């Protein structure tokens, strides 16, 4: 029998105290990790979506900023148009290095001519594109041919079919992009030529034709020349072309960022309250338990236990429980967030991306340290008092 085994025996003896500390640690660590993963996952997802677009400025028709942001983040298709001449006008600006137009399309809902209902389809111009094309060159070693497509992470060819049917035309899925946790994971990327082919064919092959207004585009992605501030260039674009809105990269998805920041603030507040309450509860329970055991502690002192070993054995008991509860809470929380990530995205209406393994391990380590620190703070006063109490007095009380 050593002091560690003695602590374990005491844990199994006092079920109420043990369960209270275990559950407090379980709740705090589980809640903190789940919230941290959600908030961090949403932030990371927004950053990745920004990177995926790879543009300094996104130009969209006036009044459609929110719609386009929601489409890009949540994958709900949108139908916005502006004249194609906008591209030429912007390209003339000396601060603009490159500009590439995009078409935002959508498949039909519950129609036999489309394999996937209401899918967000993004058509890009291979001549000017600087976001998808580099990826294609790296993976495929060539540009997309007509009738070929690249999908987000969750886009797949329906089993038994030769391709994905869009308005009656099959497109071949040539690969999937890395996950971003946003609507881009559910989007299909095709070239302008393929989009116009589909639109032409749809008049005879689909229940409803795909409409792409003449000389129109949905959005334009811009890269500014080195040394120019995207914010200034955006303002200049809006001054020269009043019918468009130019969103510079830091401002992109701003409403979502604000929403996440708001959520993060609430989460930290709730967590702080829960932490303080748990510290108070554990302190109370431990004080009661130590008082009930004062004679037992006095006996241990009489048998030769030092003050120091009494103090550390009480601390060890609490920390063993906190470690068990904390690990269980963290494991269950990580598992739940991982398994229910799709449900989280659809119910919270927020993008979400799981952290990498090293990030997760780091967060878990921080979580367990916070729980151990909180429990140690809680039991410090009763453990100190118990170790300092004079044994003879403890026996008389």
């Amino acid at each position, binding site marked *: *029998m050593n*002091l560690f085994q003695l602590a374990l025996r005491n844990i199994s003896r006092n079920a109420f105290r043990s369960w209270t500390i275990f559950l407090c640690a379980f709740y705090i660590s589980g809640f903190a990790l789940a919230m941290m993963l959600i908030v961090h996952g949403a932030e990371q997802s927004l950053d990745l979506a920004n990177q995926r677009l790879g543009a300094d400025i996104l130009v969209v028709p006036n009044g459609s900023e929110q719609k386009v942001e929601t489409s890009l983040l949540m994958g709900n298709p949108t139908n916005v148009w502006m004249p194609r001449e906008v591209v030429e006008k912007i390209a003339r600006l000396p601060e603009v290095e490159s500009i590439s137009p995009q078409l935002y399309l959508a498949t039909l809902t519950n129609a036999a001519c489309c394999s996937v209902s209401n899918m967000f389809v993004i058509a890009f111009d291979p001549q000017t594109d600087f976001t998808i094309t580099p990826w294609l060159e790296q993976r495929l070693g060539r540009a997309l041919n007509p009738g070929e497509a690249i999908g987000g992470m969750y886009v797949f060819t329906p089993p038994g079919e030769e391709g994905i049917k869009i308005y009656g035309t099959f497109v071949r899925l040539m690969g999937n992009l890395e996950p971003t946790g946003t609507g881009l994971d559910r989007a299909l990327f095709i070239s302008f030529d393929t989009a116009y082919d589909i639109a032409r064919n749809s008049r005879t092959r689909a229940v409803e034709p795909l409409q792409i207004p003449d000389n129109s585009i949905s959005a334009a992605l811009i890269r500014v020349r080195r040394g120019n501030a995207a914010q200034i260039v955006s303002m200049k674009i809006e001054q020269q072309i009043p019918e468009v809105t130019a969103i510079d990269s830091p401002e992109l998805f701003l409403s979502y960022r604000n929403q996440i920041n708001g959520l993060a603030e609430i989460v930290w507040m709730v967590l702080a309250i829960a932490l303080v309450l748990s510290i108070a509860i554990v302190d109370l329970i431990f004080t009661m338990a130590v008082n009930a055991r004062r004679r037992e502690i006095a006996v241990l002192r009489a048998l030769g236990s030092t003050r120091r070993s009494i103090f550390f054995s009480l601390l060890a008991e609490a920390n063993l429980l906190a470690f068990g509860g904390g690990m269980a809470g963290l494991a269950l929380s990580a598992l739940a967030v991982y398994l229910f990530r799709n449900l989280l995205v659809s119910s919270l209406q927020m993008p979400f991306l799981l952290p990498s393994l090293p990030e997760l391990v780091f967060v878990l380590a921080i979580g367990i340290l916070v729980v151990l620190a909180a429990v140690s703070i809680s039991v410090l006063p009763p453990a100190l008092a118990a170790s300092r109490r*004079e044994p003879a007095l403890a026996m008389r009380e």
Partner: protein
Amino acid sequence: MLISLKDVVKIYAPAKEQPVRAINGLSLEVPRGDFVAILGRSGAGKTTLLNLMAGLTRPTSGEVLVESANLWSLGDREQSRLRNRKIGFVFQFPSLLPSLTALENVALPNTFGKRLAGDEARVRAGQLLEMVGLTDKRNAFPRHLSAGQQQRVVVARALMNQPDILLADEATSNLDEQTEQEIMTLFQQIHAETGVTIVMVVHSSYLVRYATRSIQMANGKILSGD
């Protein structure tokens, strides 16, 4: 001299209450191998005297020496080691740890002193349980033992580290007459066999016959002693 108390005064001063002078300028010497019975009315200071000898309470003034070492000039670590190695304690109240078996309770003092390895400690604890007649109860938890059996285990535990001094505080006050005699005979037997010095607080004068000498206490002082 194994234990010496010189002009010891102990005043308890609980908050919001009048101070109590539990020991009032007491001096006592206990030579090695003695079996002393301390007798006195309730509140005479018997338990406090025993606690002072074990270093479980600090004297308000005076000195408590064990083998010439002043207990209160030692640090907590040294004092605890001395208690662990030299003093065995038998309490008035049930003092076995409920989460440990009889054998583990007996071996407990070794946890703090680490004089014996785990297996050796178990063998020694088993021998002590055999000595107190509880070999068949080695794996029983305290709740499954009678009050007399529990007190026998406590006696065995007090002897675990082969102490020089055995302090017993009304060790038989909660037991029936027959069990009381059995425990007292056990103390006599231990004293005869091991030569350990025993200082025992007793609640009745007829128990004095088991000791080699007795001390009568009243108001924190020694009234008489043979």
